[in-house]
């Protein structure tokens, strides 16, 4: 019998026990995968955006709109390639489903976000259709919206001049993301800022929530942020400028202490798992003490006996861990699809790497003590049952 064969045979000596332990490990790693992906969203988030864009908002809060008249001033700063702007519309679909709808200047936005792909004809149509709307692929697929359709969308903030909050827009374009990460950012829609400005009832004229500043060189991000904020200091429209990445991170952080809770759950799960698997390993070594003594008598070295026990624990954790992570990936995709992309639970390469590190650590933690015990066995004592 080969060494691998011996490990496998030992694992299946108590089939029920191995299967049950394996299932516990699988469940633990399903949770680990899901929670770790939520966790990485809180901690890293938004790695895909790069650092070529700055987000400018009112210093007091991004809910306080800034005048669009600041655009030429910002654009005049050396190193600024283009300034786009966007305003939260408060879109609501049917009864109560919130939609991410922003009012933008089409061609400026197109220059600032080359990551969004759409045929040139559709960009032109958007720029020239006052009631036009362009819709991200995810959103269009979710609601089955087609080019040329007129879509009724309400705003929970802005009434039209008539006093009605029911708006309607013509779908003139459907945009996609340039890669996987950006395709996930297509659950939004854009409308024409000029039309919005003119048709809404309030005094919110010529104002917008965000300026998006595209830089010629990302190395200048910090310097230009400072220049912009210094420019409007002590005016009613003081600004706060951050890189797009920091902005997104801050946005996610607003959800608050959920990250902390996730850490606690992870801790509880792992502690539990450690105990379950650790106990199984200890038990299996305890039962086999006479057997291990016989192996040593036959000439297996202390080191190879230790190796056998560690290999068993590693095999158990690896099988369970991998199956668990695969299940978590599938489950995450289901959650994401089921919620229309609102809950992004993605087990990307980073989560998998952490998962595999956890598998290795876990198998060492549960296997090491029993393995050391097996190595230390004195043949005489073990055979005598002492």
């Amino acid at each position, binding site marked *: 019998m080969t060494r691998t064969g011996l490990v496998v045979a030992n694992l299946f000596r108590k089939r*029920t*026990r191995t299967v*049950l*332990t394996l*299932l*516990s490990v699988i*469940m*633990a790693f*399903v*949770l680990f995968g*899901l*929670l770790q992906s939520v966790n990485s969203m809180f901690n890293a988030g938004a790695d895909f955006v790069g650092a070529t864009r700055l987000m400018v908002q*009112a*210093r*007091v*809060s991004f*809910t*306080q709109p800034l005048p669009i008249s600041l655009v030429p001033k910002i654009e005049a700063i050396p190193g600024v390639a283009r300034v786009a702007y966007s305003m939260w519309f*408060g879109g*609501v679909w049917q009864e*109560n489903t919130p939609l991410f709808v922003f009012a933008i200047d089409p061609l400026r936005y197109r220059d600032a976000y080359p990551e969004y792909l759409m045929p040139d004809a559709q960009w032109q149509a958007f720029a020239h259709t006052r009631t036009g709307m362009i819709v991200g692929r995810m959103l269009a697929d979710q609601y089955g919206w087609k080019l040329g359709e007129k879509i009724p969308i*309400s705003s*929970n*903030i802005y*009434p039209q001049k008539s*006093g009605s*909050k029911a708006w309607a827009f013509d779908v003139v374009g459907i945009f996609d993301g340039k890669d996987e990460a950006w395709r996930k950012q297509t659950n939004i829609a854009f409308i024409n800022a000029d039309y919005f400005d003119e048709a809404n009832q*309030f*005094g919110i004229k010529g104002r917008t929530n965000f300026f998006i500043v595209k830089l010629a060189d990302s190395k200048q991000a910090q310097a230009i942020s400072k220049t912009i904020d210094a420019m409007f*200091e*002590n*005016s*009613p*429209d*003081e600004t*706060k400028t951050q890189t797009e990445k*920091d902005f997104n*991170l*801050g946005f996610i*952080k*607003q*959800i*608050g*202490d*959920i990250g*902390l*809770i996730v850490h*606690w*759950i992870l801790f*509880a*799960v792992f*502690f*539990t*798992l450690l*105990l*379950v698997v650790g*106990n*199984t390993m*200890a*038990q299996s070594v305890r039962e086999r003490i006479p057997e291990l003594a016989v192996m040593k008598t036959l000439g297996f070295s202390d080191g190879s006996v230790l190796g056998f026990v560690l290999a068993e624990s590693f095999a158990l954790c690896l099988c369970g861990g991998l199956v668990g992570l695969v299940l978590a990936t599938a489950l995450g995709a289901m959650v994401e699809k089921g919620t229309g992309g609102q809950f992004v639970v993605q087990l990307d390469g980073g989560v998998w790497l952490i998962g595999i590190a956890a598998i290795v650590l876990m198998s060492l933690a549960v296997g090491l003590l029993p393995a050391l015990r097996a190595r230390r066995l004195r043949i005489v004592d073990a055979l005598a049952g002492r």
Partner: protein
Amino acid sequence: MLFSQTRAITGLSIRSIPERWAPSLVIVIGLAGVVGVFTALLAMAAGFESTLRATGRSDAAIIMRGGSDAEINSGLTREQTDVIEQQPGIASGADGRPLASAELMVIAELIRKDDVRNGANITVRGVEPAAFPLRPHLQIIAGRTFTPGLRELIVGSGVLRQFQGAEIGKVVRMRGSDWKVVGEFESGDSHDSELWTDIAVARATFARQGSSSVLVALDGPGGLQKLQSAIAAEPRLTVDVLREQDYFSSQTRDFRRQIGFLAGLVTIIMALGAVFAALNSMYAAVAARGKEIATLRAIGFGGAPVVVSVLIEALLLALAGGVLGALLAYLLFNNLSVATLGQNFTQVVFSFKVTPELVLRGLVIALVIGMIGGLLPALRAARLPVSASLREQ
């Protein structure tokens, strides 16, 4: 007969738990994990809900622009508020005028205590003098209230717990002007997460003309109905009139749903893991006691008492685990103050509430898992062939 046999075997098995503590501990810890996580997650939802539910009075109504859902989305002109305040159904204040407060909600950013850079949205509420009699439970607990006409703020105690830069005496910068914090208030509800100031100063600073909402005291039990029908008949107004309590309850809907989803998913997965662990341990326990059980069978004990005794052991261990988990959740999380985003897109500071009802639900889950984990091994124990088991060394 059956009862006395069961009692004898159960006593025997429970007394022998210390001798095989390791597998028993696995059940206890496993279930402590499940119940602890379950209780903690739902305690968060319960705390959030109780904070918001405490906010609304049933004898007051909030009026916002139609279809706004949340104050931040709403806007009313001064003409509209004047019309609203003259409607029937509104109680009068001590001065004989309608008890109503037009309030302007704007947002400022403060930095969390455990952060250095990213700001979090904090509600700044500009209020009229009637705001205080409309919320009698709100007390100034340090410093003084703001002076109308000056750029002064009072800060809710929840804001002070979670965020920095708004302590009494500090200056908060908003739209190019300096605001001094002059007092701290406590209301025991979601206003604790806010900064308050005079509405006139807020309007001037934020370049706003009207208000976000009007809060009015209702004139008796029929007041809401009277006010609603009067406003519906008023062509100058397209607004929603909601009982204040109902408005705040509806604000918890999304959060409850999300936490409920998370708690359900996590609990199901963890519970499955715990069932497997419990099965494992109970099988081990039964195997370890094979000879003992066989001996009992040989001297005349029936199969049923064996099954029941194994089940009771599993249930007791599960219960111990459940209690431990609930206790841990209570010690670690009860009254822990946290903050998250509310419907107004501003931070709501609230505390975890580990309620007796949640603990009870956690214990039921533990018992169900213990039951499942004990049943199969119990049946195996009863079916062990007596002669073969006795021969085992």
